[in-house]
């Protein structure tokens, strides 16, 4: 395999005396194994498949109450947005216009991003303060207000990644496996078709 180390340590030691530059060192003892707690504390990114989602659940009813306490001051009583924070509902059917309204409901391709972003970055100035149940509830509330789920649907690690967002197919290329190849996509001059 390509990224293996050179296990011929004695040979390396001898060769190092002759020409250090010609060898790939094994960088012995640089870095240490993280503890499980260290990894857990940092492992907050959620994939589109949702494998990293924590235990817990919520629905739009509990989310509505939390929203008024934690979110309404910036995002507005009715998710209409303000100078401080964007609108959270509506906008479907506006993307092909000169004034698209790009909300979680009209634009965001993955429901897992709603959970991930609320947990990592909301509420502003109290980032990281919400518990998993609260994040699920708020995600459920936003999805409900955008007519994507019903008010009493339970949102958790199983149900959230299964939600197909209205604009999931609105991105080019649609297939995630095709994104990485800039040239194959026909991108040039810093622009993709």
């Amino acid at each position: 395999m390509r990224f293996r180390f050179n296990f011929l340590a004695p040979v390396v030691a001898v060769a190092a005396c002759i020409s250090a530059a010609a060898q790939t060192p094994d960088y012995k003892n640089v870095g240490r194994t993280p503890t499980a707690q260290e990894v857990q504390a940092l492992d907050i990114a959620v994939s589109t498949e949702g494998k990293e989602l924590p235990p817990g659940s919520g629905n739009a009813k509990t989310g509505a109450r939390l929203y008024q306490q934690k979110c309404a001051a910036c995002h507005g009583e009715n998710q209409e947005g303000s100078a401080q924070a964007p609108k959270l509902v509506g906008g479907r059917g506006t993307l092909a216009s000169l004034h698209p309204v790009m909300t979680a409901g009209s634009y965001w391709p993955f429901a897992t991003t709603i959970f991930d972003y609320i947990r990592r970055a909301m509420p502003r100035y109290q980032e990281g303060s919400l518990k998993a149940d609260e994040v699920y509830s708020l995600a459920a509330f936003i999805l409900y207000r955008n007519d994507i789920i019903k008010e009493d649907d339970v949102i958790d690690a199983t149900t959230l990644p299964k939600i197909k967002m209205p604009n999931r197919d609105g991105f080019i290329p649609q297939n995630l496996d095709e994104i990485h190849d800039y040239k194959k996509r026909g991108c040039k001059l810093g622009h993709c078709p």
Partner: protein
Amino acid sequence: MKPNDSGRRSFLKKSAALAGLAVGAARSAPGQTAAPENSPAWLKDLHGYGERSRFETSARLGAPGLYDPAPAGYHQDFGWRNPIQDSVGYITPASLHFVIAHGYEPPDIDPAEHHLLIHGLVEKPLIFSVDDLKRFPSVTRAHFLECNANGAPAGPTGRFRVSPDATAQDTHGFTSCSLWTGVPLSILLKHVGVKPEAKWIIGEGSEKGKHTKSIPIEKAMDDVFIAYGQNGEALRPQQGYPIRLLVPGWEGINNVKWLRKIKLVEEPYMGMWESTKYPSLRPDGLSRWFQFQMGPRTVITRPSGGQKLNGPGFYEISGLAWSGGGLVKSIEVSTDNGQTWREAEIQSPVFPKAHVRFGFGWDWNGEETILQSRCTDEVGERQPTVVELAKFWKVEPDFFVKTGTIPGHFNAIQPWKVNPDGSVQNAISF
């Protein structure tokens, strides 16, 4: 151990002490290097750490032409622009490098407490201190960083960019170029052992918003590095102190500052910014996402918008060229509104994915004219006109100013109009 190693170790110890003191400075004024009030006299002494002449006033500006601090409630997300019209050579001073962090202030990080975790689809996850990273071989490379929205003619600050009064800071202030020093990510990835199913890396920052970005493994193994140095000293807090990702030639958003974690995964994670704010919306309602690479681009910095020529006679036209595609191969200048183009002189070292300084001798006859520049990179791509760009986008040119979104990567040729009175104005038109 070689004889000179002990000297180096005592140096490192001293550096660590200095780094500890610098934390106070970051707390009192994020991103600035002014000595903190409680620092010892020798650190306040300008013989210890210099300042520029009091006659030099070049400064970053908030994106809509405002100085920091922005008014209460104002979206700081729009960043601070590099005064590129005042630039000389090809390196941007760290203190003037443009700043965009989606509205987040730099976290106050003690490098002795900071770590980088590399985990996910690897043979052995490892955690590194900042000092650990400096035990690896280093690279020092000149690279530009450019914001996706640099020069966007529409969106929240579009009107400042298209105004006849726009300066080069308004039109091109979201690009900067530094000599970055750090450790190649490929060395770290080989050290932890990449599993074959790993196709992307996810970088994550330490600021309050914990910015996250997905980058393909091919790029990560190619020329990406983890930078701890900028222009010969430690990174500035506003540039990611103590460590950041450096992703040469790609949209600024990839260059995660205050880097704390890299996870190797199978697919892009679709973080909020990369999946909902940085895609570029087409008129048909579909979006291009993950456009990665910044295109070939130039700007004449002198004479440029807001400057004034002192009567007819000789002027050296000076500017910057760069391309995410690699080396800039040729730069041309037109002094007659694009009717004729002639090769400019390259006046700085040429590095791939870095700013290049060019010059072009010009005798101004005192009449109104339009100055333009364009470059061609090593893959043969030439900086487009507005019309050529519109054609590639399959839109009419006025789409770029009419759209309610941000037309990203807007690298069209920049025209500057020279008026008979010597004043210079932005002449971009759609």
